Each structure stands twice: as structure tokens, then as C-alpha cells.
């Protein structure tokens, strides 16, 4: 089943003076997916997220949300947790979340109701009348998470979500994010730490030097970057390279082999199977990091 596309960014260009922050960037984010926006620091990820949040407007290009041109009515449908995040230190927790929820366009009563729901869910109800400055950093992060999701946005945008979160909070937030996705929310993750999103993202876009260099479902991208290498474990320790395959590395009875072009997988397995006892034969999938480095080098 093909999913609907919630957000598309087409040929977006953004310049600050002489500096080009985004140069014809394209992404399309399917509904109820977790979309990883990957790239090194300074690649333009934050600028792209600011454009989606309508904090700044693109110089060229088109952004479409839910089939319409992105406009201010969509603000209430988007939740944003910026990398640089914080709260008013002197304001009480409850008051503050209420204020920020109302700024997102919720009514007072609606905001109170949702606020109670989230506070109970994260077991932080007793923080209601505490000032933010009395909270620990981890506690403040939970509040920030509530602020981001309270208005039940269709699209959630997290900029470096796990930087600064302690492991326990990160696990809680991760669980909540997956649950939100299962309930139909679309999530965009931005990070320069590729390994942190590998197992959570369905789709990714790689951004480097203000440009998208790769985009699509993570499985498909990994397939494209298939290097034809396999991890093989045998009973024996004396496997040697042949015309069908090369041994890349070897550790006791654990081999990494690369099947040479022109030869099929089945053929190779048969040949090995004839002379050896195979314990396991597994395809090596490239990590996102490998793919990223490879595609940058290809540029």
C-alpha cells in the first residue's frame, strides 16, 4: 500500500546574503512515517526545518503540506522541538505549557485537558506549579516534549532530539515517539548522528553542502548501496578465495566475503556448501553512515 505524502519540499533555495543555506533541496515525507533528515553540522538541516515551521520563508521553491501550499493555518498542525530549546525560567510549569499551547492555537479548555493527559502519562502532574528553574535539566526536557506534542500535530519535527537527553528520558521519549507514529503522526528527525536514527527511521534524506544527495525509503537506499558482501560462519577454518568470491577478512571460522560480479548468490552458496559445513550465511547491509560517506565521496 502506498502511503499518502504529507509534506513535499521542491527545489527550495534559501540564501543569507552571499551564503547559500539551501540549494534546490527536495524531500517528500510520507504520512505516518519517521523521516530522518541526516547530514553533518552546517549542511542546512536547521534552515530547512525553519522553513517547514514558517520561521523563515524560502527564496525559491515550493513547500506543500497535506496537499496545500504551506500557510499559517498549518502552524497548529506542526510541532517543533528545536535543537536550541528552552523555557521561561521564572514561569510556572503549568502556566507555561498552557501559554505555549494557546499560542499554537488551542483554546484554553482544550489545552488544560491535553496538558492533564500528558502530565499524567509522563507522571509529572506534581510539577504543575513549580518554576522551571526548580526543575532539573532532564525534567525540563520532558516539559519541552509535552510542549511539542500537546496540540496533537500531524507533523512533528525534532531537531537533534536526543542531544541533551539522558538515557532514561531518551528511552521514554523514543517510546512516545513510536506510539505517536503508530497513531498516525508523521515525524521528521534531524540529526548528524546517523547511528541514532538507523533503527527508528523508515525514510531518510541525506543533506550535504546545502543539497539533498539521497532521498527515499531506508530499505531501498540500503539495497542500492548493496556491496554484495556477506558474513559467513563455517565449521572449518580453511576457506580460501576462489574465482566466485574474495575473502575480505577472516577471524577463525568467521569470514567476510565479497561475491564477484557475474556470479549469482545461489551458485556461490552451492560451491561453498559442497566442501564446507555452513553455520550461517548473512547479507551484510551497509550502515547509513557508510552510505553517507560513500555518497559524499561520489559527489
Amino acid at each position: 500500500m502506498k502511503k499518502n505524502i504529507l509534506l513535499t519540499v521542491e527545489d527550495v533555495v534559501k540564501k543569507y546574503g552571499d551564503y547559500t543555506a539551501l540549494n534546490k533541496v527536495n524531500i517528500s515525507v510520507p504520512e505516518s512515517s519517521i523521516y530522518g533528515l541526516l547530514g553533518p553540522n552546517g549542511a542546512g538541516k536547521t534552515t530547512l526545518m525553519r522553513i517547514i515551521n514558517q520561521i523563515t520563508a524560502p527564496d525559491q521553491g515550493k513547500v506543500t503540506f497535506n496537499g496545500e501550499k504551506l500557510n499559517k493555518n498549518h502552524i497548529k498542525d506542526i510541532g517543533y522541538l528545536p535543537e536550541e530549546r528552552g523555557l521561561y525560567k521564572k514561569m510556572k510549569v503549568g502556566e507555561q505549557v498552557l501559554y505555549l499551547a494557546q499560542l499554537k492555537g488551542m483554546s484554553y479548555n482544550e489545552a488544560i485537558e491535553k496538558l492533564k493527559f500528558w502530565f499524567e502519562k509522563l507522571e509529572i502532574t506534581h510539577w504543575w506549579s513549580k518554576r522551571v528553574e526548580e526543575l532539573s535539566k532532564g525534567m525540563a526536557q520532558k516539559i519541552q516534549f509535552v510542549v511539542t506534542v500537546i496540540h496533537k500535530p500531524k507533523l512533528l519535527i525534532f531537531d537533534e532530539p536526543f542531544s541533551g537527553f539522558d538515557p532514561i528520558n531518551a528511552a521514554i521519549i523514543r517510546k512516545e515517539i513510536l506510539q505517536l507514529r503508530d497513531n498516525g503522526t508523521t515525524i521528521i528527525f534531524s540529526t548528524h548522528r546517523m547511528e541514532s536514527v538507523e533503527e527508528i527511521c523508515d525514510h531518510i534524506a541525506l543533506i550535504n553542502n546545502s543539497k539533498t544527495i539521497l532521498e527515499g525509503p531506508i530499505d531501498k537506499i540500503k539495497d542500492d548501496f548493496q556491496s554484495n558482501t556477506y558474513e559467513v560462519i563455517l565449521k572449518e577454518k580453511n576457506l580460501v578465495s576462489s574465482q566466485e568470491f574474495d575473502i575480505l577478512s577472516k577471524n577463525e571460522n568467521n569470514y567476510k566475503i565479497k561475491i564477484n560480479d557475474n556470479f549469482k548468490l545461489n551458485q556461490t552458496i552451492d560451491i561453498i556448501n559442497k566442501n564446507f559445513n555452513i553455520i550461517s550465511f548473512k547479507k551484510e547491509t551497509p550502515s547509513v553512515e557508510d552510505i553517507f560517506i560513500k555518497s559524499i565521496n561520489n559527489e
Partner: protein
Amino acid sequence: MNKIFLIIKREYLVRVKKKSFIIMTILAPILMAGLIIAPVLIANQDQQNRLIAINEETPRYSNKINDTEFTHFTIINQDEADEIKNNILEAPYYALLDIKDTSFTIYSSQQISLNLRREIENQLEIIIERDKLKQAGIDIEIIESSKTNINIETKIIDIEGKTTSSNTEVSIGIGFITGILIYMFIFMYGTMVMRGVIEEKTNRIVEIIISSVKPFQLMMGKIIGVALVGLTQFILWILLTILISFFAELILIDASEITTSTDNINQSVILNEFTKLTGGIDLITIFISFIFFFLFGYLLYSSLFAAVGSAVDAEADTQQFVLPITIPLILAFIFIQPVMDNPDGTLAFWLSIIPLTSPVIMMVRLPFGVESWELLLSMILLIIGFILTTYLAAKIYRTGILMYGKKISYKELWKWLSYKG
């Protein structure tokens, strides 16, 4: 529109609920009322009956000293005087005046008031002066009749030919006080806006907020919220000052004693003095103008303060940008005196028309009378100035609040002005 209202509400409530705001709002009127009441009170306090004993071996001066309204004199002999000196606390006199030839000494158990001392000195001086004149053969009658006292009355004739008496000293006073108040308010509330912007930026909450509202809405919400705080404080000051003065007057001053001279016994002494002093000055115009120039002067400057706040990472870095915006304000302050010396001169005219200095200088000029077209022109230019500075400030603000950890130069600010939304 609804969102900007939410911002205004937060900015207003957060500040009004602060302890420092509440303390300032209550303390200032008490001080003001004290300043109004104290002179009346002190003058009143001195008016109690006192009996003073005089001792002089051969009466030369003592019999010529006259009783005044509250001070009475009795002549006593040497024995009695010695007794008083030995036991001054038991004596039925407030003080003892000892005269030996031309040396005069006052003995008392507590420090006598300056007023009383001056009163006695004056009497003695006159008595001795007359004595000397008499000895020189000069007729005192002639000297008495040649004494003159001139007090020029100033009156203003307006276009309709109506004359009102004016009082230059009071005009100077009102002009000075309102001018200084505007200067102080713009500074106080302008920096309040700047601090608010820096707080949001260093807190990093600003990016969350501007994903919900436009940066311009956030900036204007803050500026308007703080303006309302200023107005609240100002109005409370006036009301509380009036209230406190009124009650203090009721409690501390026996009204019947001092109001006998005025026609209407029931009228407040202070109010009476006030209306007498400010006769001929258009207080209503001054009040309305004050509110207007405070509000728009503040709006013009605070948007600039907001822009500065957005460009820096900490309050310590604001210095280089704050100075240029405050120079016109400080200039206006410096020119208060020259403008007062010549409130209708060219300097006064231009400074009261140019938007950056007009809020202070126009207030200084107003009590001396300003043509209505000048006032109107100044007001219109101030509004235009406000729109212009806000437009430029908003551009800097929009870019500045999202810039972290970068030392900002003027060149950089100039570049920001050209960025598109």
C-alpha cells in the same frame, strides 16, 4: 490577533506580579506624598506656643522684644535666671535668653529650632539697628516709609484676548519634572524590553515561540505589554500619591487651623495651593501630551532596544549598540536647561519637532505655551518615526533572535536589513 493578545497578556502579568514592581509602585507614591506633605507638616509643627524667659541686668533690649503669634517672652530677674540654669528641666520656660551688653546666649534643655533662633535674632538685629540709627540722628520714620517691595505679576494673553496670570517658576518646575519623567520612563521601560528579548534568546525559548507566531508579533506583544506595565505604574503612582497625600493631610494636619485664610474651609490645603500655583497653565493639555509623548517616545525607542537585545547573546554585550540609540535621548536631557532659558527659540523648536528628542523637549516647552500646530506636527512626526524605527528594528530582530554565539558588528546588522523574511 488573538495570539498577540496572549503575548501582551503574558508580558504584562509576568511583570506586574513581580515583587519589585509592587514595591516600586507602593514606595514611590509614599515618597512623593512625603515630599508634598513634609513642608506643610514641618511648618505646622513649629506652630506651638512657647514661653521664653529673658534676663538682662539693665533692660536695654529686653523690653523691646515683642511677642509673636506663637512665641511669648517674659522678663525675669538674675536670681530666677540662675535657678533656671541650675535646673533647666524643671523650669516653666522653653528657653532662657541671657543678655549681657551685646552678647546674647540662649539656654535650653534641648536644641531650639532654627526658626525660633532666627526669629529672635531678627528681632534683636532690628532693635539694635534702630538704636544705632537713632544715635546717628536719623529719622526712623523716613527709613520705614522708603522701604519698597516689588513683585511683578506676569500675565499671558491668548488669541481670544483672555488674560491669565502665569507663573514662570511653576512652568519651569512642571516642564522639568515631566521632561525628566519621560526621559526616565523611556530608559526604564526600554531596557526592560531589551532584557526581555535577551532573556528569551538566552533561554532558547524564542525558537519555540516563533514556530507559533511571527517574530514581529512577539516583538510587538512584548513592547505593548511593557507599555501597559508602564501606564499601570504611572496611573497607580498618581492615584496613590493623591490618596496618600489626602489621608496624610487629614491625619497629620489640623485643617481648621490653616485653612482659615482661604474662603472654602472644606477645600484641601494642598489642592488649594496646587490650583493657585498652576493657574494659567493648561494642565489638561500637558497631561494628555505627557501620556502621548511617553507612549510614543517609548514605542519608538523600545523597538530599537528590542533590536539590540536580539542582536546580542548577553546583556554585557549590549553596550556598543545601546550607546548610539541613547545618545539622542541623553542630548535631549542635556538640552533641557538651554530650552528652558529660551522655550520659543530655534533650538527649542527643532528639538521638540525631531522625533528622537521631541518626547522630552516638547514636555519641557509645553508649560510655557506652544502653538498647537507645532504640537500637532511634533506628534505626527513622532508617530511616523515610531513606524519607521519599528519597521527597521523588526528586520534586525527577526534575524537576530536566531543567531547564537556570533559577535555581531554594525556591518552584520546592516546586512540583516536586506534579508528577506
